[in-house]
């Protein structure tokens, strides 16, 4: 019973590995390493920079295709921010929302490349983003409204007897926002990639079993291709939903509905 076989699990594609590391006993056991997630986040940063360079189009006024894509992303995020928060005063939050959108979108799309690494599938990254956003919205609410911020937890038109229970429920639901925002993004990307990994493993086994099975394996292969298309849509949708909900939480902090 103690002969354990080395099983390849579908979670292996998400493992954070050290690519280059420096472990030295100086300065109290220094251990610096470039991990695969660090490398892919850096690649994403350079990709955003290069797309920005290509969109500048030699400083021509007429846009090329890259410029049009950048303008459409700008217009999308701008419409989300002004629609959700406020027409005039909401633009202060636009740079933050734009960076959030582009960061999540580019990292999702880099994860769609075969054999690469999906950085946004890690809960620690999405939780740090979502905790930061909701904490920021809460601090914004406190700085603008002071202790009246707690009126956020009292729904309108609530009978006085139910008030303690309702406030507690609303408070817990507010705390759950931190987790749900990040969990939504990471869970979508993680489950999509894991499902593709498992299905591809099975389809490979089918298609390499024999001559007839090669053609039989084309049906699950077609499903995998269609599901990859859905994953591409999910990459865009999850970035948009993250930004829409972040704007909604900032609006709750500012306006106390």
């Amino acid at each position: 019973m103690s002969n354990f076989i080395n099983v390849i699990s579908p979670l292996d594609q998400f493992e954070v590995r050290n690519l280059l590391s420096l472990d030295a006993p100086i300065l109290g056991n220094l251990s610096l390493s470039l991990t695969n997630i660090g490398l892919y986040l850096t690649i994403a940063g350079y990709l955003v920079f290069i797309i920005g360079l290509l969109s500048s189009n030699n400083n021509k006024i007429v846009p090329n295709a890259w410029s049009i894509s950048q303008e459409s992303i700008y217009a999308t995020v701008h419409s989300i921010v002004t629609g959700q928060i406020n027409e005039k005063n909401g633009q202060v939050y636009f740079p933050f929302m734009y960076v959030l959108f582009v960061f999540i979108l580019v990292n999702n799309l880099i994860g769609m490349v075969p054999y690469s690494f999906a950085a946004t599938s890690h809960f620690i990254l999405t939780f740090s983003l979502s905790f930061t956003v909701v904490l920021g919205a809460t601090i914004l609410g406190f700085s603008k409204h002071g202790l009246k911020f707690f009126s956020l937890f009292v729904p309108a038109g609530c009978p006085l007897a139910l008030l303690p229970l309702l406030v507690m429920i609303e408070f817990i639901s507010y705390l759950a926002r931190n987790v749900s925002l990040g969990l939504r993004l990471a869970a979508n990307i993680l489950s999509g990639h894991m499902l593709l990994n498992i299905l591809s493993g099975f389809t490979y086994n089918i298609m390499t079993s024999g001559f007839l099975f090669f053609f039989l394996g084309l049906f699950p292969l077609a499903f995998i291709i269609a599901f990859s298309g859905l994953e591409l849509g999910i990459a865009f949708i999850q970035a948009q939903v993250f930004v829409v909900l972040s704007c909604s939480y900032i609006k709750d902090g500012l306006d106390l509905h």
Partner: protein
Amino acid sequence: MIQAARIIGTGLATTGLIGAGVGIGVVFGALILGVARNPSLRGQLFSYAILGFAFAEATGLFALMMAFLLLYVA
């Protein structure tokens, strides 16, 4: 024994996706009905539908996350 229990637990946790399927169907059914009543609101209603789809999908994926946690981590 633990491995068998883990696999059974994973299968049971995956039934949470029933809710996700029903929820997504309800959201897009409501979108179709809404656009049928008032086709000019198609853009606005579609963006609400995508938001609702993300919420419904997220709730289903919470259950799927528990399933994966049980299978590979616990």
